[in-house]
């Protein structure tokens, strides 16, 4: 079984857990004490990833330290429909947003770590770079809607959507509002409605997907 060095509050680790859940892959989760223990900077984890970041994915001889590569690996093994098809434009769009997702991590992710876990950073700069990235994503989704496509690269979700979704959905954790982005709201809802979708802390259940339960007065 693939082994994921995982932190429950890390949006990058969540990308991999989410992709695995959506494609039906079982992961062996190894919890890393990122906060408060800083275990990712300890000798055992640095031996696997000298960059000192998580997630880390191990599968036999294969050792991955970049979350986008992990998404591609999971999809290629279990559900190739999540990868780009043979269309050149679609392939390019998938790569475009996979690369772009790094900017979300640096800006919105940095703001979140600063505001929530007291990590250092220039919060004003992180937040304004985050807003700039959200605006690009919003326009990208508006244009896709004009092309009749609901997701970033196609009319079906791909690894590009999973790479971008977590840091966007958790932007408010870093003090960046999601109120002014209607296209992002619809896209996020479409992803959260997918069969097999799982949450992470800070992303609530879409309770409307379940019908209202019958009243049960007088005790459980």
């Amino acid at each position: 079984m693939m082994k994921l060095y995982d932190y429950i509050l890390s949006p990058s680790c969540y990308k991999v857990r989410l992709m695995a859940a959506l494609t039906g892959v079982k992961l062996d989760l190894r919890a890393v004490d990122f906060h408060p223990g800083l275990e990712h900077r300890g000798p055992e984890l640095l031996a696997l990833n000298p960059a000192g970041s998580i997630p880390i994915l191990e599968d036999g001889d294969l050792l991955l330290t970049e979350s986008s590569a992990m998404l591609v690996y999971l999809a290629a093994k279990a559900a190739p429909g999540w990868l780009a098809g043979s269309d050149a434009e679609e392939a390019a769009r998938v790569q475009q947003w996979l690369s772009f997702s790094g900017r979300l991590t640096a800006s919105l992710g940095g703001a979140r770590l600063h505001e929530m876990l007291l990590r250092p950073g220039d919060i004003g700069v992180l937040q304004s770079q985050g807003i700039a990235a959200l605006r690009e994503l919003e326009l990208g989704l508006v244009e896709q809607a004009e092309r009749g496509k609901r997701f970033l690269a196609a009319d079906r979700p791909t690894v590009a959507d999973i790479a971008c979704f977590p840091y966007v959905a958790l932007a408010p954790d870093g003090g960046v509002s999601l109120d002014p982005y209607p296209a992002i709201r619809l896209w996020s809802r479409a992803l959260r409605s997918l069969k097999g979708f799982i949450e992470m802390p800070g992303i609530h259940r879409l309770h409307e997907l379940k019908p209202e339960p019958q009243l049960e007065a007088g005790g459980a």
Partner: protein
Amino acid sequence: MTVGPMLDEWYPVGIFGQLDEAGRKTMLMDEPIVVARDGNGDAKVTDSSGRILPVRVRYGHVWTSLGEPKKELFAIPEADQPGRRFVDVGVVRVRCSPLRAVENFLDIAHFPFVHTDILGAEPHTEVQAYKVEIREDVDEVWATQVQFYQPQAAKSASGGITTQYMYRVAGPTSTVLYKTCPPRPSEWDVITLFVQPLAEDLCDVWPWMALFDDDTPMTDLIHFQQTIFLQDRSILENQVPRLLPLDPGMEMPTRADLTSVAYRRWLKRHNYTYGAQLVAQ
């Protein structure tokens, strides 16, 4: 704004085990302070004028006060009980009133909607009657005979159980809960929320636990509690007003909210109003 009687209370300002001589620069009720270890390895807290503040090291954390505490730091006898594991969950900053953070911790009715499939799940939403009192001898708010159906009450729980709870407000921003301990039915697990008020609308939250659980790895225990608290955080940052309204009329409680009602009454009685809103605005 003057801080009032809350000035003389104890507040958590750091995890003792993580302190070094360089120290941790932080805030306490709008006042910059430094929390550090001195040459002897003891905790030392100073304010911006260099004044040395009173210090206690208990429950994994360093405690201090900007004023003159009239009472010793509250007791948690379970902290000295053999066989328990003590968990420093780590700090989480929240843009909300420190009093709102405490009030949310005292609430069970939100479990099915905010901690879905962990601490609660529809259709098990009903809050049964429970007892609330202000214990005059210790001057604490207590809620007892609280129970709730939980799909996964603790890391050590397998499957759903009806969990028993007791809640205790031990200081204006310090609260302790006692809940069913799945591996040891005769004991209570202890889970606390220690809140450091940075400003009236900003706080650092330090959860801490004293559990009977010999099997679950420490990191899993930390992550379970971080999961729960981070689910609450997005609620706390979206309540309006940010300050806790102490006057009736601004928010509407029901029978399920009796702990919150008692907490607000207790705050008002002591003039603990740092982080509170007194007149409906």
